[in-house]
Structure formats: structure tokens, C-alpha cells
């Protein structure tokens, strides 16, 4: 149970509507109007400073951790410098659209139309990208669902983890500012590099000053409220909060409360600087532990108070609403902002790292049931059984949290990406299931690639079945294939083609990011940038890891190829021509063929016949992707994770040979296709573990849905712990569980108001079920539920 304060705060949070706050956009734009002619990085730093100095300061009732990006309890902001057209086009339907609604008031719309959008016309990242991208790539990349990277040109990148351990908590922004100022003194503007460095350090001074100013404004506001406050207890709280905000993030924290407030200010700075997803919190239980241990020992805080502060942070993290276009919302459903927080795992020298805070984080998520942070755990063979059981307890509550990761495979993935062994042991999650390290600059979700499109183009002369347009490589007629191998080769050719254009889309975006949207604030949080004097967007981080291209629909493609192999070429029950006709008419009149296709072995049932195709495809995908290098010379990386992208990716695909009907969802990550895993959860895990997880440095995702009946008793939870350990012994990376009965989900569809806090796992993350579109809700209900046997 949460404290009364948290419970009250949670209720008011649940019942407040996500609303757009325009102040960040207005201040950022106004500043840019005043800085024409200066270097891009200075302009962006000044704009950040202007935002910190001017947006409204809002302290909500009874808050212990303060600071907000907007005046609403659930605020979203817009960043016109990345893209503004969708806001202009869509803001009238923000409050009525099917996925992720927002409120926005009429006066604010007026201001955006008058003062903000006109300035950015022709200047935004989106417009520049669309000008620069070549036509051939654009045909596949722009709003098609075939290959999709719109989150890399309609919004900022995010995908960083602030380095609390070595930078933020150690130095504080005052020290960072001082270092930058010193470097400016040391540099002579006599070379190209020195000129750029001087600008970088000047920008550094501005952003450090900006975030300090922001905190001081909160301190002043807290003092002001304290003066008016009649309740003496709250008055003292406000005075303490005022003291803390005067101290952090300017100076290093010394207490648990100060440290948590510093985490939140650091996070607020990140959000205000670029409003991007996957601004991760890293290994919270590790960097917070020294403060916790010290304060408890010194009697400054007890466990109950620490728990309340953690839960306060969870609520703050959930207050920020990531404002996105309706198209993007199809891919990233549920107001999710992917602020991942990782607990457990091993220390840098390989010992078990679990501590009291690890358990308290689990408890916080159980208590507040918010969709943020994205709670991830790292499990290794020596993780305490009681920790894994506590994880299973939280899973059984049905929030979809935590996502459970194989500690060792995460390290292997990062070793494969070039990190040192100590750093590879120190990993944390980025976004949903990407193993990541805080000293790494990386695009962890650069492109979503629709694998099923490669099958469609191979079997349909390079054309889309839905539109009839030539999209892939021109391919011979379906009747021209003489063997299964020929079909497979055609599929791989089409896949390579899609990979190549994904790479083009990415490096083009990387190029304009480096030119147009340097990240001076985030560069303060990532090791390497300050030392080198090089911005994060230009490769300033200690490590640069190549962008990740995520394949969607492994199961669909493996199942489809098996049907062709088995029914057409082995059993010769049908011809390819007949199959082509059946797919063209979405199986109408070919019900018997569809039945035979559906009856073929399906990935997810521990059948080597089909699973081996999944392994072959994923290995090929990895090698092909790794053969390309990004803008900074780092090899690209593969992943099979998932946002909710398997739904829109499916909506542009015609029928597939596996028996799937036209425009229906594909499959996320390395999960089996919904409803086809009919053997057992152990069979699902064995199928998924056959894939070589360790080479896919961008992460892999398995979603298993359990009925709550299966997780009632301690024995059930112990069994769950056992299958997690077994799955990880097999070399797999990640598994998450949805523990919700279909009956409850149906009820929630009918009476959303009664189920506002019902969390479900969408794919790489959890969100409120009632916030999902009907389609997404139906897709979740359809996933196989294992009833108690």
C-alpha cells in the first residue's frame, strides 16, 4: 500500500486528462527569432536557457518531488524545430482521435498558429529530411509502414541514459559549467576543431546555467508557497523542498531526497531539451543505494519515507505525456515515453548487485501501477531466489512489469557491440528491451523493418498487394520459381533491398541531425562529450554504437516460408500459382488451402521444421545489417523487439502464405504469431531460444500471456521463476508476461471508466489498457492465453 499522500496524488493523476502545454514551444521559438546568425549549437543552448527561465513553475498539492514540463498534471509539449506540420494539421482532432488523445485549448492553438509554426516553415528537421532523402528510398520509407524511421526525423532521438554514477551526481551542473568555462579559456580559435569546440563549451555553459536557473525558480516558488501555507507540516516540507532545489542539480546531492530530486531535474532538462522517448534512468538501484544506505544509517530517513520518495518519482515520470502524431501513436501506443529503469544484475566486477532498493522499486511499481518508469530487471544465475520470486510476485499482479532480462546475454550483446567487459557488465536498458550503457551514443530504434513486405514483394513481382505499386525489387512472376530455395533467395534479396534503404534513411537522418539539432544539454550527461568537446549528435560519446534496425514479423515470415516449402514443394498439394491467386483474393474461395496453410507447423511450438527457418532468417538479417556502417563508421545492429508496430505494419500487408489474412497484425519481437502457439509456454520459450539472441545487440523481445489463474499460488510463482531461469539458460535475452484474463479485458473495453488503472503489456512496455485503440485492445485480447491445465 502506498502512503495516503501518494494514493491521493495517484487518484488526481489518473483522473486528469493529458493536455498540451505550449510554453516550451513559444519560448524556444522566440529565442530562435532572436539568435539568427549564431551557430546552431549556441542557438539551441540559448533556446534551452530561455525555456528554463520562462516556462510556468507549477508545484502540485502535496508533492515531495517537484518540477513539471507544463502547467497540467499530465503535460505534453511540442517541439516545432523537429516537426510542426502534424501539430498544425492534427491539433483540432487531438481530443477525439482514436489513439493517445490530448486536450489543447483554443487560445493556445491560436498562439501556435500565429507565433510558432510560421517561423519554422522550411526550417524543421522533418522538412529538411524530406528534401534530402532520395526518391527511391522515400517511396519505401515515408509513411508507408514498410520501413519506418519517422521517429528519427519527426522527433528527436532520445535513447540516452544520464551518467549519474560518474557525471551528474559526482559533479553537479555547477562543476560542469566551470569545466566548460575553463576549456573555453584554454582554447584558441585558430583551427576548425577549436572553433567548434569553443561553441560546444559555450553551449555547455548556457545549458548548465539553464537547468540551475530552472531549479532555483522552483526553490523560489516553494518558498512563496511555504509563506502562504497554514499547515505547519506542509510548510516545513515546502521549506525543505526549497532548500533542496537551491542545492540540486547545481551541486552534487548528499541525501536520498536530494538525489531523487536531482534525478527528476536532470530528466526534466532532457525532456525540455528535445521531448524524445527513451530518456532512460539507468541502474537506479545502484546509483541511489549509497544515499539510501547513508541516510538510513544516519537516521535521516526510514524505509517508509524512502519508499514514498521513490513512488513520488514514479508518478512524476508518468506525468510527462509524449506528444506524437496519430501515425506515430499507432507505433508507440499508450502515452508511452520509454523511460526505462533497470534494477538487479551484476556489479562492474561481476558480483550480484541486488540490494534493498531493487526490492523497493518492485514494490513502488506494484503500489502506484503507473506506466512509467519502464521497469526492467536483470537476472543472472546468482540472482537471489527471493529477488526473482519478488519479480514473479509483481508479474502476477498483472501490470506487465517488470520486463525480465538475461543479465549475461545483455553483456554478450554489448561485448559484440565493442564495449569493454566491465562496461558490458554495467549495462542498463534503453527504451523497451535494448541493452545499453550510459557512456554510449546510439540510435537504439533507428528503423522498423517490415519483414513480411519482403515475402510479399518476392511473391508478387515486387508489388504491394494492397496498392499494386512496385515497392520492392522487380521480381519474376510467381510461376517462375522452380524450388523452395529459389523462393527463399528471392525473399532474401527483397529483404536485403529493404535493409539497404533502411540504412540510407538512417545515415541521411544522422547527417542532418549532426547539422541541425545538436544536443548540448544531453551532451552534459554522457561521458566523452565534455572531454572531447564534441556534441553527442556528432559522435562525442565515449562509445559510438551503430543504429538498430528492428525486424517485425519473424514468426509470420518463418511460417510463410514453411508453408511454401511444405505444401508447394514437398507435398505438392498446391502450386505456387494457386497460392498466388489465393493471396491476391485474401483467401476468398480458397478456404481449404488456407486451412492447410494454418495447419502447417507454426513457429512457437518447438517444431524444428519451422523454427529452423526463423533462425536462418534472423541470422541472415544480422549479417546483412552488420555489413553496413553508419555516419560515424560503426556497424549497424539488428534487433527483434517491438513497439506496438506489429499492428500498423500488418495493416499495409496483404494476405501471407501462413494463412494470415490481409491487413491483420503481424507479430512482435521473437514472439509466436497470436493464437498459433498452441503447445505450451515451454514450447514457446524453446522456439524463441533457438534464435541466436546474443548477436542481436539491439535486443530481442518475447511476450507471453498468462491467465491470472496460473499465478495464484506460491508454487505457481516458483514455476514462473523456473521457466524464466530455464529460458535464460537456453541463451535467450528477454521475456515479459501479460497476466490478465480475457474476461477482464473485455469488461475493460465495455466499461473503460472502471478500469482506468488496468495496465497491460503492449510489447516492449506497459500502458493503461483503456488508453489503447480498440484495434490494439483486440490484438491484446487475441494473444493466446494459457489457462491452467
Amino acid at each position, binding site marked *: 500500500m502506498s502512503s495516503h499522500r501518494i494514493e491521493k496524488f495517484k487518484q488526481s493523476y489518473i483522473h486528469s486528462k493529458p493536455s498540451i502545454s505550449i510554453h516550451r514551444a513559444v519560448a524556444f521559438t522566440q529565442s530562435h527569432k532572436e539568435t539568427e546568425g549564431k551557430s546552431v549549437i549556441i542557438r539551441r543552448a540559448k533556446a534551452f536557457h530561455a525555456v528554463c527561465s520562462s516556462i510556468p513553475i507549477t508545484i502540485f498539492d502535496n508533492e515531495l518531488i517537484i518540477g513539471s514540463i507544463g502547467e497540467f498534471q499530465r503535460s505534453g509539449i511540442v517541439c516545432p524545430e523537429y516537426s510542426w506540420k502534424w501539430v498544425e494539421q492534427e491539433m483540432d482532432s487531438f481530443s477525439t482521435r482514436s489513439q493517445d488523445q490530448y486536450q489543447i485549448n483554443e487560445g493556445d492553438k491560436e498562439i501556435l498558429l500565429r507565433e510558432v509554426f510560421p517561423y519554422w516553415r522550411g526550417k524543421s528537421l522533418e522538412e529538411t529530411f524530406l528534401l534530402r532523402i532520395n526518391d527511391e528510398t522515400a517511396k519505401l520509407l515515408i509513411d508507408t509502414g514498410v520501413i519506418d524511421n519517422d521517429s528519427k526525423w519527426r522527433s528527436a532521438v532520445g535513447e540516452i541514459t544520464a551518467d549519474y554514477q560518474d557525471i551528474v551526481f559526482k559533479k553537479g551542473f555547477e562543476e560542469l559549467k566551470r569545466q566548460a568555462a575553463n576549456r573555453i579559456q584554454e582554447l584558441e580559435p585558430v583551427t576548425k576543431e577549436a572553433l567548434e569546440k569553443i561553441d560546444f563549451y559555450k553551449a555547455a555553459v548556457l545549458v548548465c546555467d539553464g537547468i540551475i536557473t530552472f531549479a532555483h525558480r522552483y526553490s523560489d516558488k516553494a518558498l512563496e508557497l511555504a509563506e502562504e501555507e497554514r499547515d505547519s507540516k506542509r510548510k516545513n516540507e515546502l521549506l525543505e523542498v526549497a532548500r533542496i532545489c537551491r542545492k540540486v542539480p547545481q551541486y552534487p546531492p548528499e541525501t536520498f531526497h536530494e538525489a531523487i530530486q536531482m534525478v527528476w531535474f536532470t530528466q526534466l532538462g532532457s525532456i525540455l531539451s528535445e521531448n524524445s522517448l527513451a530518456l532512460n534512468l539507468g541502474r537506479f538501484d545502484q546509483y541511489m543505494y549509497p544515499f539510501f544506505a547513508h541516510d538510513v544509517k544516519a537516521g535521516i530517513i526510514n524505509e517508509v519515507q524512502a519508499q514514498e520518495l521513490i513512488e513520488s518519482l514514479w508518478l512524476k515520470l508518468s506525468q510527462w505525456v509524449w506528444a506524437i502524431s496519430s501515425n506515430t501513436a499507432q507505433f508507440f501506443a499508450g502515452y508511452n515515453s520509454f523511460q526505462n529503469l533497470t534494477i538487479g544484475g551484476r556489479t562492474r566486477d561481476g558480483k550480484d548487485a541486488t540490494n534493498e532498493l531493487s526490492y523497493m522499486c518492485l514494490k513502488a511499481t506494484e503500489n502506484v501501477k503507473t506506466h512509467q518508469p519502464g521497469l526492467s530487471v536483470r537476472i543472472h544465475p546468482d540472482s537471489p531466489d527471493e529477488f526473482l520470486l519478488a519479480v514473479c510476485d509483481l508479474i502476477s499482479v498483472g501490470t506487465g512489469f517488470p520486463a525480465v532480462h538475461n543479465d549475461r546475454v545483455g553483456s554478450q550483446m554489448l561485448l559484440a557491440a565493442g564495449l569493454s567487459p566491465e562496461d558490458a557488465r554495467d549495462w542498463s536498458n534503453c527504451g523497451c528491451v535494448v541493452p545499453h550503457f550510459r557512456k554510449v551514443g546510439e540510435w537504439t530504434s533507428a528503423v522498423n523493418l517490415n519483414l513480411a513486405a519482403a515475402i510479399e514483394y518476392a511473391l508478387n513481382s515486387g508489388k504491394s498487394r494492397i496498392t499494386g505499386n512496385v515497392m520492392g525489387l522487380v521480381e519474376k512472376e510467381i510461376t517462375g520459381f522452380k524450388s523452395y530455395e529459389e523462393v527463399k533467395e528471392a525473399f532474401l534479396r527483397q529483404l536485403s533491398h529493404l535493409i539497404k534503404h533502411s540504412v540510407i534513411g538512417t545515415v541521411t537522418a544522422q547527417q542532418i541531425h549532426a547539422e541541425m539539432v545538436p544536443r548540448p544539454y544531453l551532451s552534459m550527461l554522457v561521458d566523452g562529450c565534455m572531454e572531447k568537446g564534441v556534441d553527442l549528435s556528432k559522435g562525442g560519446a565515449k562509445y559510438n554504437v551503430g543504429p538498430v534496425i528492428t525486424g517485425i514479423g519473424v514468426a509470420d515470415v518463418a511460417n510463410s516460408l514453411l508453408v511454401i516449402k511444405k505444401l508447394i514443394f514437398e507435398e505438392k498439394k498446391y502450386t505456387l500459382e494457386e497460392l498466388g491467386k489465393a493471396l491476391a483474393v485474401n483467401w476468398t474461395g480458397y478456404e481449404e488451402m488456407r486451412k492447410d496453410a494454418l495447419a502447417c507447423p507454426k513457429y512457437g511450438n*518447438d517444431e524444428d521444421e519451422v523454427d529452423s527457418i526463423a533462425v536462418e532468417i534472423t541470422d541472415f538479417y544480422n549479417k546483412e545489417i552488420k555489413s553496413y556502417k553508419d555516419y560515424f563508421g560503426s556497424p549497424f545492429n539488428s534487433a527483434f523487439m517491438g513497439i506496438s508496430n506489429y499492428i500498423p505494419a500488418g495493416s499495409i500487408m496483404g494476405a501471407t502464405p501462413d494463412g494470415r489474412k490481409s491487413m491483420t497484425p503481424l507479430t512482435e519481437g521473437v514472439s509466436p504469431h497470436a493464437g498459433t502457439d498452441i*503447445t505450451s509456454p515451454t514450447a514457446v520459450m524453446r522456439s524463441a531460444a533457438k534464435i541466436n539472441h546474443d548477436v542481436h545487440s539491439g535486443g530481442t523481445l518475447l511476450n507471453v500471456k498468462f491467465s491470472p489463474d496460473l499465478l495464484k499460488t506460491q*508454487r505457481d510463482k516458483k*514455476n514462473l521463476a*523456473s*521457466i524464466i531461469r*530455464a529460458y535464460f*539458460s537456453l541463451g535467450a535475452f528477454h521475456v515479459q508476461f501479460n497476466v490478465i484474463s480475457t474476461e477482464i479485458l473485455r469488461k475493460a473495453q465495455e466499461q473503460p471508466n472502471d478500469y482506468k488503472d488496468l495496465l497491460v503489456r503492449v510489447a516492449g512496455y506497459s500502458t493503461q489498457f483503456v488508453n489503447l485503440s480498440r484495434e490494439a485492445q483486440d490484438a491484446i485480447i487475441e494473444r493466446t492465453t494459457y489457462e*491452467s*491445465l
Partner: protein
Amino acid sequence: MKDSDRIAGNVFQIQRWSVHDGDGIRSTVFLKGCPLRCKWCANPESWNPNSEILYFRDRCTGCAQCSLACNHQAILRDGGIPLFFAREKCCSCGECCEVCPNGARKKIGALMTVEEVIKIIKRDSIFYRESKGGVTFSGGEPFAQSEFLRELVLACKRLAIDTAVETSGYFEWKDAEDSVKELDTVFIDIKHMDEEVHKRLTGVSNRKILENVIRISQKHHEVIVRVPLISGVNDDRKNIEQMCQFLQKNTRIFGVELLPYHSLGHSKMTALDREGWKIFSTPDAEKVEHIKKIIAEYKIQNIDFKYRF
């Protein structure tokens, strides 16, 4: 391959991720054929030692694909829906099941060798190891296929896989002796203490069963007596006390597990064209608790595998 691996038996299901029939995560192997005819049976498709066809008439659309596929004229098109199924002509080849578009026909049982069964069992070895689980042989009456069962148990033993058996207790001791020595856990049913009632409800006397309970408990330390608890049939104080007295006096069993009746077997009874089944009722939770108390009064342990770990 050893000769013993080629020994075959009739198996009607191998259920992976079985979590209540013994410790940990298990695979349950259902062997076909049972000498009992319990009126509440949950798996009536297990009775016949040979393969057979379930015909779910409510799913039949009368398309007659099955009739065309049948080489034995066992399915007749007489204009009505469902079709007429002359079961006595059926050889259980399953051709009709392959073609049915509506899942109305299902073949139950297949001859499998020890090697084939073990191959499936081994797939989940890692899950058994992590959960201290294993394999449970169920039925039907597993000891009715005594040689097949013995070889399966021995094969598991060689792989260090934990084994359990669920038996009706109705078997010849000589058929079970070798397997019992090797099995890690034995679940044995006592359905009723009164011989006449037992005969009426299951078709056989309980005398042999009770003798086997005594024998097994002398040879084996991990023996659990299971009672399918059926309201108004065997949940009266008298029957339970008689059972407890019997166990106390004659055996050193490990414990008793009560399994409240469920009615999942009914649709299968109809699909098998069997008569004589009845809908019984499940004793309520209060009643079950009451019975557990009686058992505990006799210093016999109540066991519930839903909770045990």
C-alpha cells in the same frame, strides 16, 4: 537404439507444462486403456485400449467430406445433420479427421514407441531441472500397458528425469512391481471404501485396489492417495473415516490429496457415443475443508499439489 526403445504403446496425449500432477513443471503422458468405467470420468476417451474417433456432432455441418474419405463405409449420408456414424465399422484410421473442416472429428490415441515418447519428453528437460519437475504417466490406467510403462520409466531414470504415475490402483501386482521400484512418486486413487458402491460407480470391485494401496505403500515412501471428491457420492463422513482408518491401519502413505470433481468429461462421453454417464456435483469449498479436517484428525497429511513446492 536399444530394442526396448522400439516397444510401442498407445498414447493419447502428451501434455507439456503440466503443473499440478507432481512437483515442478512436468510433462504428463496419457496412456490409453482403462479397466474402470467411472461414471464421472474426466477422460472417457482413455477407456478403450485402442485408438478411436471422437465425433462432436454439434460441430458437424453435414458437408460429408468425412464420408468420402472413409474407406470402410462407417459414415453414412442419410440426409440428416449430423451424419450417421456406424462406429462398429470404424477402424480408427483417422482419415475422416484429416478432412473435416470443422474439427468435428478427432482421432484419439496413436501407437508410439518408447523412443518417440522420450524424444518429446526430453524437449522440456531444462524446465524439469530448473523446477525440480519431471514426467507423470497418467491414463487411462498406465499399468495396463505394463511393459511400455516400465520401459518409459527406465528410460527416464537413465536420463535422471523424475517420474510419477497416476494409477487407478486396479492392476495385477506382477505388472506393476518393476516400475514401482523405479518410480519417484505414485498417485493411487481410492474412490470409495464400500465394495458394492464401488462396483456400481466404477464397474469393478475395490478389493484389488485396496490390496495394491497396501503393497505399494510397503514398497514405496512417496505414495499419495488421491480421492476424486464427488458430492453425495463419496464425501460423507463415514466413507472418509473408513478410508482414514484403512490407511492408518494398513499403510504408511505419504498423504492424501482431494481432487474435487469437475464435469469436463461430459462432451467427450457424447462424442464417443457412450451412455450411462451422469452429471455429478462438486462439493463446495467448505465441505472440502471439513473433509480435510477429518483426515488431519487421523494424523494423515493433506496434500495439495496446487500449493506444494
